[in-house]
């Protein structure tokens, strides 16, 4: 029983019994590959899944043993803690509220993000996956530069530096990608598509805002350094 795993590569349906039918590439499901190594789901995948589950439980249990879930004093509608913070995943939004009118920060921007996420797979530019500078065109560079500058100015008008700074950095990086030489250490930068640039921009902003909201905001939503004692309010 010491024979190594034998991978059967064959188009013979009898030798590859999991493949019930062959379908054409333009149909569904899109199963194209015939030249890959296959292994039995049991035990290879199942065991990994079990281990994954166990590891997740172990990590969470250790967290549960070491750190108690927060529980403050009973809710008191007349005593507002300062600052009153939403759960951490909403703190980016709450931070936005600091800069923009409530309608913009609380409704327009989240709704925009939600819509954007939903429509991603239905946009051609997302599906093509061509690097940003792959197809040179006359209007592309000026349009991107204009967008970055306009967005920067727009957000700067609200003094929303946590958005302006990432915007400028991403903008600079986009043009830097244009300049990278193929074959160098930075080649991957050239391969980044426009949707990826936008998503990165969004993620960086979300992370920056959330981190600021979580750690750098004290009483009255004023700026505090997390390693200093926050003044009691």
């Amino acid at each position, binding site marked *: 029983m010491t024979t190594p795993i034998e991978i059967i590569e064959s188009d013979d349906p009898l030798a590859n*019994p999991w493949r019930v039918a062959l379908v054409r590439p333009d149909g569904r499901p899109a199963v194209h590959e015939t030249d890959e190594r296959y292994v039995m789901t049991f035990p290879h995948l199942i065991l990994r899944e079990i281990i994954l589950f166990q590891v*997740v439980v172990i990590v*969470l249990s250790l967290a549960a043993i070491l750190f108690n879930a927060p529980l403050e004093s009973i809710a008191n509608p007349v005593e507002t803690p300062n600052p009153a913070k939403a759960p951490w995943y909403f703190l980016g939004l709450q931070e936005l*509220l600091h800069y923009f009118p409530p309608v913009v920060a609380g409704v327009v921007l989240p709704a925009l993000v939600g819509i954007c996420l939903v429509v991603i797979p239905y946009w051609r530019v997302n599906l093509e*996956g061509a690097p940003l500078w792959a197809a040179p065109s006359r209007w592309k560079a000026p349009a991107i530069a204009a967008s970055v500058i306009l967005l920067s100015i727009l957000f700067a008008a609200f003094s929303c530096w946590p958005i302006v700074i990432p915007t400028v950095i991403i903008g600079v990086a986009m043009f830097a990608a244009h300049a990278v030489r193929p074959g160098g250490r930075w080649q991957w930068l050239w391969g980044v598509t426009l949707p990826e640039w936008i998503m990165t921009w969004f993620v960086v902003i979300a992370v920056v805002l959330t981190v600021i909201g979580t750690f750098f905001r004290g009483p009255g939503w004023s700026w505090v350094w997390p390693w200093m004692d926050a003044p009691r309010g």
Partner: protein
Amino acid sequence: MTVGEWVRNTSVYRSVIRHGIAPTNRNRSLIIFENLFLHVHPVKVREKTLRFTHTFWLGGITLASTIILVATGILLMFYYHPSVPQAYRDMKELQYVVDNGVFLRNLHRWSAHLMVFSAFLHMLRVFYHRAYRPPRQFNWVVGVVLLLLTLLLSYTGYLLPWDQLAFWGVSVGTNMAKQAPLVGERVRFFLLGGNIVSENALLRFYVLHCVVLPVALLLLISVHIWRVRKDGGVQGPPDDERRSL
């Protein structure tokens, strides 16, 4: 004959598990397709999808934390009364009286954070691996809705301990919802069952957290996972440009 063998020879055992235990490919295949839950898997998988960097197992982590959340959540419900001030006192009871209560509550809380976090990372992974492309467009949308549901679940659960953190977190959150033009006020009114965060709000959040949202989540998770299989299994990094349309 060992006890194990005897058990495996009983007709009851054989009515439930129809395959042998010898490590043959046939038995291993039967394990998969004779099991409702494993049936979502194919009998064989592409070896490279097992690589860690293929998916970073982020969907699996999210699912694992969901399972933990359901299990611990059901147990916690046994000791929870959605009323003021008993809800808060129940937290203390879990901590001081109920055996392992504080462990389960911690586990539930941290799993919830992990679920939000890993679901978000999962979405990013799928995006950067361009795994939303056809035929997976619909599953991407399902995933976005799942992320939203995850956030809502975490948020509704946030109020249930009825402590200062919960109360003011939810007050701030629902006031953000109030900003929506036209419907904002109504949405908040319906969500809270009133104009203030009160016992009504606690009950509504409880029902949403324990019934409405979990049912929706589990249904959509089934769709999501089923579609993973139907759309050709997990999709890793787009190294294979043949597949781009």
